[in-house]
């Protein structure tokens, strides 16, 4: 009898442990997103990607359609090549789609925003997006602003 109780308790323990693992996998992590995004790959070249990271979302009109799979540097042109993994649910992106890198909010993470064009031909696996806009780098813009301020209007009591 005592032995049976112990065995039941161990069984319950193992079930609880596995249930916790399943909860971590399903409810907490991106398991669902990982499995559905084995779609196709498109590339884009940017002169500057700012703080874009691998696994950053790829959005069209605010809807997540994929993720950034890889970021490399083209050693010939010194451009950043961003490889995006797009869900196979969204097959019909026009050829003249443009890609830009945006920031979500003031302190948020960076993501790739795609803006579909009007072409009737669609992007296929491995295609490259031609129209891109580099990331908004706060320091550059601030620097330009301060520079133009300094050269533009002189201090009044000079």
């Amino acid at each position, binding site marked *: 009898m005592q032995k049976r109780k*112990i*065995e039941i*308790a*161990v069984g*319950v*323990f*193992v079930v*609880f*442990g*596995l*249930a*916790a*693992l399943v*909860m*971590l*996998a399903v*409810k*907490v*992590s*991106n*398991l*669902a*997103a*990982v499995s559905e995004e084995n779609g196709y790959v498109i590339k884009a070249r940017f002169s500057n990607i700012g703080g874009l990271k691998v*696994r950053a*979302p790829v959005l069209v009109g605010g809807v997540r359609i994929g993720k950034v799979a890889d970021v490399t540097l083209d050693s010939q042109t010194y451009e950043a090549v961003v490889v995006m993994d797009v869900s196979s649910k969204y097959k019909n992106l026009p050829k003249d789609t443009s890609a830009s890198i945006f920031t979500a909010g003031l*302190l948020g993470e960076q993501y790739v925003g795609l803006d579909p064009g009007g072409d009737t031909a669609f992007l296929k696996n491995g295609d490259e997006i031609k129209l891109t806009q580099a990331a908004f780098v706060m320091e550059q813009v601030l620097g330009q602003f301060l520079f133009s301020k300094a050269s533009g209007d002189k201090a009044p009591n000079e």
Partner: protein
Amino acid sequence: MLEWLRRIGARALLFFERLGRALLFLLRVVAVLPQLVGEFRLCITQIYSVGVLSMQLIAISGLTVGMVLGLQGYNTLVDFGAEQSLGQAVALSLVRELGPVLTALLFAGRAGSALTAEIGLMRVTEQLPAMEMMAVDPFRRVFAPRFLAGVVSMPLLAAMFSALGIIGGSMIGVGLLGIDSGAFWSQMQAKVDIYDDILNGVIKSVVFGVVATWIAVFEGFDASPTTEGVSRATTRTVVHTAFAVLGLDFVLTALMFGGL
């Protein structure tokens, strides 16, 4: 001066001697593990005393740690208007670090010390030589089942700790502080990766399980067979496990998340 040097040398020799003995001990335990296939009964009793009896402590600790993380995280994040990210902050800190590490430290105190004391007392009462006299291999009968039970229990306990911690965090964040439930869970799911975070956390807890149980069982085996020896061995188990787990955690974190 010479006396001092001699003492350092003796200390070092003692250290290497113990380390070597511990490694040989581990090898012998691992060598008899395949023989346990037919004898799950031995392991089940041990999983009961190592895992099931630790469950209460782990569950309550996990829940409270999660709740505290929720409160503290909220107070910090709300200054930046980013309280929606609370779910992500709680889940990542639990799954990557706090779950495996705190479970290992609690495990050392709850189960490791008990293992050491039990085996140490077996030595004091000369049960181990008696077993050998009866042609029962103590490695197979005593050490290996305990070792296996610890290695199996630790990842399960760590997963419970993390899961309950996240539930605790959501109770505080969503229930008490009024963060939107959808934002809480979806931000978490967007940022926690199944391989990079969850799987690495599980690997960590398996490693800690091996180390913590190894230390506990070895200290019992190596205890000097007196009352004082057993009490010292028990203390050493808890202290050495804490050092080993925290040190290993740094190395594993650097390998997994440090981008080295």
